[in-house]
């Protein structure tokens, strides 16, 4: 099973990066499709799970050693991004998973569609498009899937704010929710 692992992929395509913390291969935007085709050919026949992860722009404080040899805390702004995550398995060899990620910015997010390679991405990429707003290049039928066509916004993004609920009614529950929203209930 030695060949069905991320090392062989990295060896074949050096431009792909290995993210140790997440245990995932980060595909380069340019040839994601090529890599996917190579992966399919090399035995990863089953793409189980496709999803998006939204990372907001965050300020990370890192301790670095400056020129003077002292450690100091420097704020660094990490740009927001959206990861499209693919979990691959091999049905023939019963191994897995191999996690692939496509990284894209939050604004005008685009990714390479892997639906032509694995049909199972079809509905799931549509879902990522619908909920995260990632535009999949080469997807055969990219439409909204769970929300209706006229819906605006992408609800799974972390900065998504709910629009006014036109079905709102003054139920007693509103009081509770208001309390939760005021942050009085700390979780």
């Amino acid at each position, binding site marked *: 099973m030695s060949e069905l692992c991320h090392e062989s992929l990295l060896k074949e395509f050096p431009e792909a990066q290995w993210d140790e913390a997440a245990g995932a291969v980060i595909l380069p935007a340019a040839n994601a499709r090529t890599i996917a085709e190579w992966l399919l050919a090399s035995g990863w026949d*089953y793409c189980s799970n496709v999803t998006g992860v939204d990372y907001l722009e965050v300020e990370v404080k890192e301790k670095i050693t400056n020129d003077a040899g002292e450690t100091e805390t420097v704020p660094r702004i990490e740009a927001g991004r959206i990861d499209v995550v693919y*979990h691959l398995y091999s049905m023939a060899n019963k191994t897995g998973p191999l996690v692939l990620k496509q990284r894209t910015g939050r604004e005008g997010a685009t990714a390479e569609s892997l639906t032509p390679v694995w049909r199972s991405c079809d509905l*799931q990429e549509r879902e990522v498009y619908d909920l995260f707003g990632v535009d999949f290049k080469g997807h055969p039928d990219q439409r909204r899937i769970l929300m209706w066509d006229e819906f605006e916004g992408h609800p799974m993004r972390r900065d998504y704010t709910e629009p006014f609920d036109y079905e709102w009614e003054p139920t007693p529950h509103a009081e509770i929710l208001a309390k939760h929203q005021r942050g009085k209930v700390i*979780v």
Partner: protein
Amino acid sequence: MITAALNYELLQQEGLETSLLEISMGPHHPSTHGVFRMDVKLDGETVVELRPVFGYLHRNHEKLAENMTYLSSMPFTDRLDYFNSMTNNWAYALAAEKLIEVEVPERAEYLRVIMAELTRLVNHVTLVGFFINDLGALGTPLMYAFREREKILDLFEQASGARMMCNYFRFGGLRNDVPEGWLDRTRELVDRFPAFLDEYEQLLCENEIILSRTQGVGNLSRELAINAGVTGPMLRASGVNYDLRKVDAYGIYDRFKFRVPYTDGDTGDCYDRFMIRMLEMRESVAILKQALADIPEGDIIGKVSKVFKPKPAEVYGRIEGPKGELGFYLIADGTTKPYRYRVRPPSLINLTVLRDMCLGGKIADAVIILGSIDIVLGEVDR
């Protein structure tokens, strides 16, 4: 199968233009298993175009879970596939347990297997009932199925307090031990179940109408099935021997002797999908018998606090749910809430091939193909 579609093109070419009948089957339709819709174009009775439309039950389950603690999401998993709340619980617990490293006590493991297999029985037996109902039987097999399901749901209620929304699994074990006498009642049920299956098989499996209605309908080739990520009994009906209970051997499935039925992949039609489920029930009964015989006494839950902060990590846990591979993808960021919580819904992904299977068939075929896919809209729409 493709001939009908081809004939339709032929007619168009010859200038004999006929207008197609467009039908929106659903969301309120007797046989779309919930609020599912199929936009169908018919040439006579032949389906020439089919577009599944769903999302009517969408509640953004994943977003909800991102805003609450790990434990609080557990009751929401019941509502995914509301037929199989126990296995949903297990899949989520399995994924979360990868984050927090906890030892599941022996008794809890056995009870998990028992619950999961009982759930499988519930799911398959009702699915077969609904499937035959879609074929047009007047609910007789469905009523028999519901009778057996009621018995199992009674057991679930005694163990967890609720019949369908069990909310029974916890990270590191189960919420509470089963009440006294529960195991004996389960044994009694399991012993009786094969007799019911015999009767069910006698009623259905050789019926000429069922045979000719289901065989050769909705063929799904092995290659397409794998490529389209179809899982569960549907995949095995297309000739792939892939059962996560064997492949991953999660829980303690490696301790039980059971077989995985699958086909040789020549047909992969509705009949195969129906039969694979019938056969799987027998294997579930075999597992249940072993588990009920071996179950030890002991603790029911490992040492886990109700609210915990796992280390930042990404995990993907999956189990063989009755409908297919049910996976949970969790990203922990060191807080009490998951940063990302994703459900891999087998019902949704199995729907990928719906159109491929339905085209060229009759409208009645589309209905039974949908029935044989076995979807639950709570899971498709989430």
